[in-house]
């Protein structure tokens, strides 16, 4: 890349390139957030269950 403008326009292919990278970012973000949120929920649920079993 010679300039920032060239980087943004991607030689006229901006739509295709940047949509691809946006989908990539979204899919990766989901794959990080979803398992971590799920993990926290499971731990909270198990902790509640264990507290109920042994007060």
């Amino acid at each position, binding site marked *: *890349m010679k300039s920032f403008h060239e980087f943004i326009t991607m030689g006229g292919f901006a739509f295709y*390139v940047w949509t*691809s990278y946006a989908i*990539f970012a979204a899919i990766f973000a989901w*794959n990080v957030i979803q*398992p971590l949120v*799920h993990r926290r929920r*499971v731990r909270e649920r198990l902790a509640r269950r264990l507290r109920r079993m042994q007060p």
Partner: protein
Amino acid sequence: MAQREAVIPATTTRRLWTWFHRLASPRYFYELAGRLIPWFGWAAAVLLAAGLYGGLWLAPPDYQQGDAYRIIFIHVPAAWMSLFAYVAMAGAGFIGLVWRIKLAEVVARACAPLGASFTLLALCTGSLWGKPMWGAYWVWDARLTSELVLLFLYLGYIALDAAIEDRRKAARATSVLALVGVVDIPIIHYSVEWWHTLHQGPTVFKLGGPSISLDMLVPLLLMVVAFKLFFFAMMLVRARTEVLEREVNSAWVREVVGEP
């Protein structure tokens, strides 16, 4: 001398076997995976940043495709990982089926959403690359169709898993499905050679070495390694969560969950 040669592999095998057994213990796996995840995760992040910088900024435009080719840096790693995750899922499922190792069932199940994600990413980026190069977002070509079948295999696996309440029964059913679906993997891989397709042939792994300049090959390989590390990091996070759920009645889980 002959005797000694026979002894060494036997000890190595035994040691490997002992390690394998320890690894299969949920508690050991939980702790080991917990230590590995940050390394895999941060290494993936660093390599991803380097690969994106190299691929989107440093690499020159392609002499035929201009800047549109830059989709390759996510398309190819995603497509490779879609196959890798499937083989890992089916392989772990096979181990679970044959040796009844619960941890293998957990690992197989953890591969499915990641594999489906990589397949979806490969299809979407391929489609967005196909439009400017071939003039169509989609063609019913052998490579594209077999990759779409792979997405349906992953979705079928996830749906079947969600439909069966009992974890062990679900693992048996999904593993059989995954093993039947393995037939699609060589079809995807060889589709560009077996049929005349619009999809271009291999660029990296082929006779006579890669036909791609180093400026493009280096970021591509960085992205491939980053995707692989990312897969392992997030697969292990998922597997650890399920180990906790499955082993909730054991003392060590009580300790782990009891921690703030």
